[in-house]
């Protein structure tokens, strides 16, 4: 699987021979694969800054489940950025597990807050309770909901990119 992933790129004569670097650049920007990765990076970066806003500016202490989701979200901003320059679709291999696992934690957190998972199953009874909803944007959007939205979108987009690369 690995050698095939990104094989299109390898064959792509970026700045080599017939295609001048300028032309390659112009082509690259309209490359939907690059755009998909760029959107993923944008989503992860916005989520990272958003979570830092909650903790550092609004001084809301992150609960343990929030911390676990941060562990999976923050590195995405770096890994995806590295994958953008030069464009390396193999970054999906490294980023997809992070996004998927982070999304699983976000889903669990959401179910916990909704009361669909019994609280006794919560790993954090001391310190900041994970069940306490700090923020309700528009009355119903909570922090784990935003987290899940970003993780799910990134997971979906990266899967799409993977599929396109395999074709």
């Amino acid at each position: 699987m690995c050698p095939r992933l990104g094989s299109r790129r390898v064959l792509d004569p970026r700045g080599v021979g017939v295609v001048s670097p300028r032309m390659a650049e112009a082509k690259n920007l309209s490359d939907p694969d690059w755009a998909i990765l760029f959107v993923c990076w944008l989503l992860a970066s916005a989520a990272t800054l958003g979570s830092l806003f909650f903790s550092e500016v609004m001084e809301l202490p992150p609960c343990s489940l929030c911390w676990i989701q941060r562990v999976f979200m923050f590195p995405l901003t770096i890994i995806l950025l590295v994958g953008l320059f030069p464009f390396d679709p193999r970054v999906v291999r490294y980023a997809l597990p992070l996004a998927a696992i982070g999304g699983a934690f976000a889903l669990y957190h959401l179910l916990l807050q909704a009361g669909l998972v019994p609280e006794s199953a919560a790993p954090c009874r001391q310190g900041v309770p994970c069940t306490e909803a700090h923020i309700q944007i528009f009355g119903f959007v909570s922090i784990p909901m935003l987290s899940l939205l970003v993780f799910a979108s990134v997971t979906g987009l990266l899967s799409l990119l993977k599929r396109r690369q395999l074709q």
Partner: protein
Amino acid sequence: MKRQTVVLISAAGLMLVFGLATYLYTSEQADRTEALAAAADSPLERPHSRGRGPADARVVLVEFFDPACETCRAFDPYVKALLAEHRDRVRLVLRYAPFHEGSDTMVKILEAAALQDHFWETLQVMYDTQPQWASHHNPRPERFWEFLPRAGVDVDRIRRDAQAPKFAAIIEQDLLDGRTLGVRKTPQFFVNGKPLLRFGYEQLKSMLDVEVAKQYPQ
């Protein structure tokens, strides 16, 4: 447009939004506490609140503190120096924010010591011996009783008095007011109702100096 340009512009845009949101949020919070402080039923000071300095001082420095907080201890000499510098013009009001485990007992001891008119002496001993009873690796608030006699108080009376339910009510009220004012860390300072937004000794000093200059024009 080049890819690099797109990413750079996006990053700059994200940072701009972050900075703008931070500015808007903090200024809104500051306005909110100022309005709260101006209200008749101000959460900044209660009749039970301990203070020092002239009652008619036009500048009031409110400090939310925790006897077990290291930074409160480190700030104490600076606060004293600031009060000495602006003698007759600044009044200090201490509010409790016992966030550490066992700190509520310390507050009760302070209040019981105040009945013997030894509040400040007891607080001083608490800060002096803090590393012994409030170590982060091994907090042992019960050890403070060993050091309490240094404050020159009747320890047995304090043991009895500290149980008074009114002290628990004081702690409750201070914690509630702290939440209302958005106090999540200690020490948190308010100068005439305005929160100290950027934490630090220099920032506190300049905020106090500016307010004193405003209230007492030369």
